[in-house]
């Protein structure tokens, strides 16, 4: 059984703005799926249609074999959404926000309080349970959104930019938590602008651009499409003129160079050539991660 099946999904906003132009993709049950695309590509529209926050213009959406047109209430109980924007009442207590959300899913007060405690403890928010949400840090607010999205124990968790604006440590913590959820069998759909995040966490990827699906494959296969990599070299001494070499070489500044290497080639060769030219290399790093390079290439092409 697939977690989500989307077929020929179209969304046109008044007065005729086409947000989605017939996208189709499948998310398998238990998958960790990245939905990527530049701003305004149609990611949020797709998510909002799945979650019944936006009415579709045409097409079919199925969640765990339930049709959105016929069984929207059943579908709603299967999905947990962690939206990008903080959308809780900042004057409410942390515990109340989570317990109220559970109530919307028909969970009784006592059971909701137990579930909320378990989640808030797991996410390190239990000490703040009686604080009003306004008093929480940005990272804590994100965690609160995750707790709220999970309180009814959904089969599918959709995370829309879950780590936007959080510090590195909190981001890593959240990654571990989300990975653990996926290992326990939850289907995770993630949208993010941190492509490193998608590369680290997800197994499959779909890229939407201008309302069309331009890629839908496994991360592994997608990364194999990359034919070259860009490296940044920090060098010891300033270089006057660049040596003539048979690979792309560019000066970034007086002590930094950039080289491009075909994926099939070894990095040993350009280093050896530069060494022979008297350039002492102190360190070498990828300019961007591989996914980012491919993403930019693909979306620019469009």
């Amino acid at each position, binding site marked *: 059984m697939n977690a989500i099946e989307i077929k020929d999904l179209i969304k046109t906003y008044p007065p005729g703005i086409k947000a989605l132009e017939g996208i189709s993709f499948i998310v398998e049950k238990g998958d960790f799926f990245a939905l990527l695309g530049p701003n305004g590509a149609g990611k949020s529209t797709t998510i909002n249609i799945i979650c019944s926050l936006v009415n579709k213009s045409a097409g079919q959406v199925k969640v765990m074999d339930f049709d959105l047109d016929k069984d929207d209430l059943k579908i709603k109980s299967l999905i947990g959404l962690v939206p990008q924007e903080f*959308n*809780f009442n900042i004057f409410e207590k942390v515990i109340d926000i989570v317990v109220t959300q559970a*109530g919307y*899913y028909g*969970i009784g*007060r006592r059971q909701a309080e137990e579930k909320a405690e378990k989640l808030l403890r797991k996410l390190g928010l239990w000490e703040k349970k009686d604080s009003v949400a306004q008093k929480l840090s940005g990272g804590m607010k994100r965690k609160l959104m995750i707790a709220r999205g999970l309180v009814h124990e959904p089969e599918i968790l959709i995370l829309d930019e879950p780590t936007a604006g959080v510090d590195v440590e909190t981001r890593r913590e959240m990654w571990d938590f989300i990975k653990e959820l996926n290992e326990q069998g939850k289907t995770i759909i993630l949208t993010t602008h941190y492509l490193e995040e998608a590369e680290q966490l997800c197994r499959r990827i779909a890229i939407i651009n201008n309302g069309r699906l331009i890629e839908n494959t496994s991360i592994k296969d997608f990364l194999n499409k990359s034919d070259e990599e860009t490296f940044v070299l920090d060098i010891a001494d300033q270089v006057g003129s660049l040596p003539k070499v048979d690979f792309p070489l560019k000066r970034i500044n007086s002590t930094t160079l950039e080289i491009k290497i075909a994926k099939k080639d070894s990095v040993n060769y350009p280093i050896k050539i530069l060494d022979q030219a008297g350039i002492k290399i102190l360190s070498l790093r990828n300019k961007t991660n591989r996914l980012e390079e491919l993403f930019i290439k693909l979306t620019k092409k469009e």
Partner: protein
Amino acid sequence: MLLNMFLTIVRKEITRFMRIWTQTLLPSVITTILYFIVFGAFIGSQVSDVDGYSYMAFIVPGLIMMSVINNSYSNVVSSFFSQKFMRAVDELLISPTPNFIILTGYVLGGVLRGLIVGGLITATSLFFVDFHIYNLTWVILLFVLTSLFFSLAGFTNAVFARKFDDVSIVPVFILTPLTFLGGVFYSINALPPFWQVVSRFNPILYMINGFRYGFLGISDVNVFFSLGILVVFTVVMYVFNLVLLKKGVGLKN
């Protein structure tokens, strides 16, 4: 399960208006006391009895009803619109809570606030005037139906509102004039014939007079007609709001 969903919304609504009781419950009581003092004691002492009741006793039902109308309406419109404004309403819309539970939950919040404020004003009025309720069943019926209707109207306003200004337009420019001209402070029999006819197009006239009948046993209009109008309007508003929710007007897209 549905009961838990319903209770969650109602509990949230009660918690909200009780938490800010100085903004939600107290102002109506203070305003009504001022009405009693100014219109009842100062000006009312100069006015002769109306249909056998002192002017003070005559305005009590209208003042209660005026507060019930304002509080029921403003509770739902402000609560639902602020949820919409903060996008917190999305959490409700993505949940399996059916539309009729959402609507009934919010509306009951408005009704309860209307009832609490109405109760407080009734108790306050006892300090100013001694009266006996003519027909308690009728009073409760009109009380509940009026607050239901205006809670539903507040919900409609919240659904269509796009900014906070839109929330205050109806109470200020429509509700207040209609209430003041709906016979709170006078009997329409005291008006010239033309204005009596015009007044009969004001729906609030029927609510206030129906309520006054329950309190004092007097009315300018046929009370069964009042009740009928109120029932029909309430049912129409309920169905209309359900259609709005179903289509996602002002909430989706």
